[in-house]
């Protein structure tokens, strides 16, 4: 601890999608998720690096657009600037959009922070015909400027040298228009405490009605605040109409001045393939067919047929079934004669047979193939395009297009997706998204097993798909009607389409698989122990018996009850239980379809419930739990009646 305090701290800031996380990984040598959407880097990554024999601590912050925070992520990033010790601040900008991003650089210089500007993605900017004179920009700004192409590590040496020989802040920005300067001076001269952002920036943020800064000043100045308040109120009132606009325009004017002689724009007219593909994904006439192609090949063929079919068959049927399982079971049976211990280890609900085998042979290949597809799509920049495509439809169910990201992630793991709902802007939106994830979005493990099961029966898959989509839209529509509040507003940056880098995709997939696996394996094991204990003590039998009438009421054999009980411990557990029933030939086509629908809708797994409780609070989580259970069985009952009455599938 003591030594850590001594090494200088480097902090990275910048807009989303500028390659900040890539820079972080290149500098520290470890890898965290790089994303095209705001959300995955809500938490802050930290690492260490060694430059010219000296140790540094490196901190990555969530993307922020300006010093005035709006989202929670920006608030986190700002808090670091406001309160933490910073020895070197790297502002990473996208060279292509330097004109849009320099205003924040100006804000950071203005705050007197020890700043180095990193102009990243230089290669793509040059391809767009932009010509940079970075030494000139350095001169204009008065801070070190380094040009980089971080995904190819270009400019890393220069950046490290700049860090090693960094001298500290030397410069000031401005001036703004005289009247604005006068007001800033009037307010900042009243501030007597020491602020990490400097008196000038603190004054400007107060004028812009930043409540957190207000609170900070109130606390720091104590009784002196009584003198500050009237001046602040007078300025705020006098400038009520257009202060933010005026400051933005002043910074834009200064940005143009800084770029004079440092940037030339050549006119290029050729449309690249990426641009054309981007248009196709966003045009509904080509975008919807493209989406269906992505779903068909990515989800159905790759995850469903390859992951849940070929891979699972090989691992579960061949590797485990023929070689590993008999060996392990034999080994333990030789080892001990104690019945309960045998059962615990390799019995029906044993740690090995139920816990390990399911987790490794059944779930991991499915989740792994899903995360691979998800990471590829994420790195191409497809999701923001999907968000704009579905925004109109999602408005009908009370969500904005932004919610498409947790929804798609939900097809991988609903627990992770529930966590990501925190990036949605209103509480109403977050609750609706949580309900829909709990109810109608099957996770990849469940999906893989269910797709495999249903594809054996002609027509069953279509019925299942129709019912699930219908319930998704209906419940979304009704919750939007019932929940108070206004519809969310949608805005999103659409990053350029990029060819995903193989290394990034693989590392991301592995990172996700690892965290998923570390999360689920203990739960699988706990679930096996609970089920084992239930079996040994006879409690399980009682629970199954108590629950059986509900299951038989929707037309299923009583053997299916166990699958539903398992379903709560892990959604995919339930689906896998169904798989066993199917292979035993216990289900008719109608029963199979009804069971698949009910199980898909039924209560989320225990891990998702814990996450719901953490994100939404116990009351909301419990209410959703009850609602979803009732809805699932009600739908199953109605569907069973309908199928029997119409004779479809029989």
């Amino acid at each position, binding site marked *: 601890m003591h030594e850590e305090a001594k090494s200088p701290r480097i902090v990275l800031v910048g807009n989303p999608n500028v390659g900040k996380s890539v820079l972080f990984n290149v500098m520290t040598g470890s890898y965290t998720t790089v994303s095209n959407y705001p959300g995955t880097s809500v938490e802050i990554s930290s690492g260490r690096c060694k430059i010219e024999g000296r140790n540094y601590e490196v901190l990555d912050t969530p993307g922020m*657009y*300006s010093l*005035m925070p*709006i989202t929670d992520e920006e608030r986190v990033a700002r808090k670091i600037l406001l309160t933490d010790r910073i020895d070197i601040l790297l502002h990473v900008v996208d060279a*292509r*959009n330097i*004109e*849009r991003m320099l*205003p*924040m650089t100006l804000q950071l210089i203005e705050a007197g922070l020890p700043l180095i500007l990193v102009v990243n993605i230089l290669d793509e*900017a040059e391809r*767009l015909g932009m010509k940079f004179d970075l030494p000139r920009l350095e001169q204009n700004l008065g801070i070190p400027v380094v040009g980089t192409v971080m995904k190819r590590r270009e400019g890393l040496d220069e950046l490290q040298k700049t860090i090693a020989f960094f001298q500290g802040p030397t410069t000031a920005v401005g001036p703004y228009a005289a009247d604005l300067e006068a007001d800033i001076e009037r307010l900042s001269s009243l501030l007597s405490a020491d602020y990490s952002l400097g008196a000038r920036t603190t004054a400007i943020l107060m004028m812009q*009605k930043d409540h957190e800064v207000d609170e900070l000043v109130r606390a720091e100045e104590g009784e002196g605040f009584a003198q500050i308040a009237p001046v602040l109120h007078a300025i705020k009132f006098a400038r009520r109409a257009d202060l*933010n*606009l005026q400051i*933005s*325009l002043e910074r*834009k004017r200064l940005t143009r001045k800084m770029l004079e002689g440092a940037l030339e724009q050549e006119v290029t007219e050729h449309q690249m393939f990426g641009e054309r593909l981007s*248009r196709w994904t*966003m*045009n*509904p006439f080509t975008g919807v067919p493209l989406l269906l192609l992505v779903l068909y090949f990515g989800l159905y063929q790759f995850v469903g047929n390859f992951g849940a079919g070929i891979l699972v068959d090989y691992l579960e049927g061949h590797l485990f079934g023929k070689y590993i399982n008999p060996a392990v079971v034999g080994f333990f049976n030789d080892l001990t004669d104690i019945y309960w211990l045998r059962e615990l280890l390799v019995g029906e609900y044993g740690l090995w047979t139920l816990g390990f085998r399911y987790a490794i042979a059944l779930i991991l290949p499915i989740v792994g193939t899903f995360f691979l597809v998800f990471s590829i799509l994420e790195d191409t920049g497809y999701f*923001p395009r999907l*968000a*704009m*495509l*579905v*925004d*109109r*439809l999602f*408005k009908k169910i009370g969500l*904005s*297009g932004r919610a498409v990201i947790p929804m798609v992630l939900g097809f991988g793991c609903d627990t992770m997706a529930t966590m990501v709902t925190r990036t949605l802007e209103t509480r109403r939106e977050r609750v609706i998204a949580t309900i829909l994830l709990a109810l109608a979005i099957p996770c990849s493990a469940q999906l893989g097993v269910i797709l495999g099961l249903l594809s054996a029966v002609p027509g069953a898959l279509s019925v299942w798909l129709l019912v699930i989509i219908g319930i998704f839209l209906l419940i979304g529509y009704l919750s939007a009607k019932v929940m108070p509040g206004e*519809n969310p*507003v*949608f*805005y*999103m*940056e*659409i*990053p*350029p389409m990029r060819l995903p880098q193989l290394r990034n995709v693989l590392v991301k997939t592995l990172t996700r698989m690892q965290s998923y696996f570390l999360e689920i394996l203990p739960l699988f094991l706990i679930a096996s122990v609970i089920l084992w204990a239930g079996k040994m003590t006879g409690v399980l039998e009682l629970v199954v018996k108590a629950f059986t009438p509900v299951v038989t009421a929707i037309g299923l054999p009583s053997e299916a009850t166990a699958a539903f009980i398992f379903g709560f411990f892990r959604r995919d557990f339930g689906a896998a239980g169904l798989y066993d029933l199917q292979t035993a030939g216990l289900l008719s086509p109608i029963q199979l379809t009804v069971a698949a629908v009910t199980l898909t809708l039924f209560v989320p797994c225990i891990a998702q419930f814990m996450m719901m409780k953490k994100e939404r609070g116990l009351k909301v989580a419990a209410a959703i739990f009850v609602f979803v259970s009732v809805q699932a069985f009600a739908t199953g009952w109605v569907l069973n009646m309908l199928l029997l009455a119409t004779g479809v599938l029989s």
Partner: protein
Amino acid sequence: MEKLSPHAEEILESMWIATVEEKQVGCLLSDLDLGPDDSALTELVRLAYVETRADRLYLRKEGRPEAEMTVRRHRLAERLMMDILDIQGAEGNEQACEFEHLLHEGVDTKICTLLNHPTTCPHGKPIPPGSCCVEARSKGETGVVPLTELKAGQSGEIAYLAISDGQKMQKLMSMGVLPGNRLELVQRFPSYVFKVGHSQFAVDDVLAREIHIRDER
């Protein structure tokens, strides 16, 4: 030209609506609540804008242009009250009635340009075009329009953002959606996609309606 009294203007207004829009043949004096020796009426008769025959009042050809302009001023005032100042309902009507009498000597032209030459009043009645509207049309000036009015592929300069939510406004501004920047609309459906600099953004129609563009057709 002599400036009419407010009351006389109101009489002209009613006459114009009755004769031109409702195709009636004159109005009964009692309908307009007028006695034969009302001062406003004498004023109009003296200017030969109207004539009385028995207890019926007729709008003369000479009075029509002036009457049309009073109607125009009234409906412009309504638009101003309801759209810009957000005074709705009866209160808005009442304020408009007071306000219309101030819209003389080019003030009506300024208001009309500010409102971007509206063609209907908030109640859906047509606003008679003034010379400024005719001129704007002949020059093809479209003025400042919301982003929703642009066609895909068109571009223009961002004129102003009319967003009531300060945080959304700041978000847009920090994304580079600032007055003076050039904006190109890429796509209109299912969401509005536009380019500012080398960046693309998607917004829904609620936000698109509030980004105002100086159109350059």
